[in-house]
C-alpha cells in the first residue's frame, strides 16, 4: 500500500514547523507579533493560526514540538497531501474554537494541532488498520476523550504541565481534534489512503 519512495521521504513540512516553533521559543521578540491575542485579531487575523506555534516557556515548547515532530513525521511519511490536509483542518479547528467558543484573551501552544494529528492517527488506525492497530487506535480515542473531559472538569491539564498563570485551553484541543478527525475520516473514506500523494 505504501510506496518505498514515500517511506524514505524527508518530513520537510514537519521539520519546518518544528524549526519555526523552536525559533519562536528562543526569540520571544519574534513571537510577540505572531501570538494569539484576541484584542489584535481584528487587525491581524493571522495570529489565530501563527499563535499555534508560539509557546509560553521552553519546557512547554519542548514537549509540544517533540510530539509534533513524531506525529508529523508519521503522517508526512505516509502521505504529505493527507498530512497537509490534516494540518490545515486541525489548525482551522483550533482557531475557530478559540475565537468562537472560548473567552481566552491569549493562547499559546501547538497542542491543538497535535490533538488533530493524534486523533487523526488514531482514527486512521481504527478505520484502515487491522487487529492490534485497530485496538490501539480505539484505546487512544477513548483515552483522549477522557483526558479532554477531565481537563474540562478540573480546569487543569492531565498528563501535562502548563506555564504558570495559564489555564488549559480545552476548546483548542477539542477544535483541533475535530478538525483532525474530519480530515482523517475524509482521507480514508474518500479513498485517499496513506501512500497517495
Amino acid at each position, binding site marked *: 500500500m505504501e510506496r518505498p519512495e514515500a517511506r524514505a521521504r524527508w518530513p520537510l513540512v514537519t521539520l519546518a514547523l518544528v524549526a519555526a516553533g523552536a525559533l519562536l521559543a528562543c526569540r520571544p521578540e519574534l513571537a510577540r507579533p505572531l501570538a494569539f491575542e484576541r484584542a489584535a485579531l481584528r487587525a491581524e487575523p493571522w495570529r489565530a493560526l501563527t499563535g499555534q506555534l508560539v509557546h509560553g516557556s521552553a519546557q512547554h515548547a519542548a514537549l509540544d514540538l517533540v510530539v509534533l515532530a513524531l506525529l508529523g513525521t*508519521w503522517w508526512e*511519511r505516509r502521505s504529505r497531501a493527507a498530512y497537509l490536509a490534516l494540518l490545515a483542518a486541525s489548525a482551522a479547528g483550533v482557531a475557530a474554537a478559540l475565537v468562537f467558543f*472560548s473567552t*481566552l484573551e491569549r493562547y499559546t501552544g501547538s497542542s*491543538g494541532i*497535535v*490533538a488533530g494529528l493524534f486523533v487523526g*492517527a488514531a482514527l486512521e488506525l481504527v478505520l484502515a488498520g487491522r487487529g492490534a*492497530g485497530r485496538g490501539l487506535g480505539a484505546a487512544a480515542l477513548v483515552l483522549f476523550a477522557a483526558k479532554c473531559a477531565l481537563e474540562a472538569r478540573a480546569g487543569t491539564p492531565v498528563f501535562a504541565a502548563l506555564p504558570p498563570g495559564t489555564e488549559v485551553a480545552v476548546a483548542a484541543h477539542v477544535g483541533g481534534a475535530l478538525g483532525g478527525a474530519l480530515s482523517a475520516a475524509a482521507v480514508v473514506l474518500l479513498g485517499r489512503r496513506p501512500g497517495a500523494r
Partner: protein
Amino acid sequence: MLKLLVASLSLLALCACSAPTVQHRAGVLEYLYPEGAPTVPPSDVHLALPLRVGVAFAPGGPSGESYGNYWTGELGAYSPSFSEGDKQRLLERVAAAFQGTEGVQSIQIVPASYLQPRGGFANVDQLRSLLGLDLIAILSYEQTQFQDLNRASLTYWTVVGAYFVEGNENETHTFVDTSVFDIPSRALLFNAAGRSKVGGSATALETAGELRSESRDGFDQAVDAMIVQLQGALAAFREQAKAGTVRGAGTPKLEVTREGGGSGAGAAGALELALALLLTAGCALGRRGAA
C-alpha cells in the same frame, strides 16, 4: 546609713539585671477596624477569575517597653526596626511563592506609603481604585525580643569582659499572619500564620547588632513557615469554595466565575507522546520487517 547604702546598691544591681523586652507589632484589626469605625458585616462574595491580588504589611511600629543600661549592652539605644526594605523583601518572597497560582492574574506589592495607619476599608477601597485590586492580603506581625544576663555577665564589671565575654542571652519570638480579604464584600476569605523562635548570645557591646540580626532571621523564618501554611489554607479554601460558602455554614456565600481575559495554553502530554512513540516504533518495526 550603711543599710541605706546596701539597699540602694542592691536596687541598682537589680535594675541592671532586669530582663529588657522590646516589641514591635502591626495588627490587621487595628488597620481595618480602627476604634470608632462602624463595623459592617461582610456581604456575599463573587470572585471573577482571574484575580488581581495586592499584598502589603499592615501599618505598625514599635510598641511595648524597652529598658537599657550599660551592663546590658545599652539595649535602650537599640530600637527595634523593621525597615521598609526588609518588608519589601519579605513581600516579594510571599508574592513569588504564589506567582502562577491558578486563577490569579497578578500579585502586586502595595507600597507602604499607600497604607494609612488605622485607614480601614476606606483606605483599602482607595487601593482597589488605584491599583485595580480584587483581593488584598494583609500581613500582620508581632515580634518580641527578650534579653537576659547569664553568669558570664559578671565579667562585665571588669569592663574588658563587656568586649569579649558573651554574657547576654537573647531570644526573639516572631509571629506573622496573612489575612486575605475580598475587597468589595469585606469578607475574610482565609488566613494563615507562621511563627519562629530565634535565640543567641552576645557580648554587651554586640547586643544591638545581634538583636537586629535575630529580628531579621525571626521574620525570615516566620514568613517561610507562614507561606507553607498559606498554601495549605489556599488549598482548603478552594475545596470549601465548592460548597458555595466562604468558611462553611453561616458565613457569606461564595460564587466563583471565570471571566475572559485570561491566558490559556494547550499542552501535549504523556498520552500524545506515548501514541506518537508507539506509531514511530510500529513504523520502524514495519520497515525492518519489509527489509
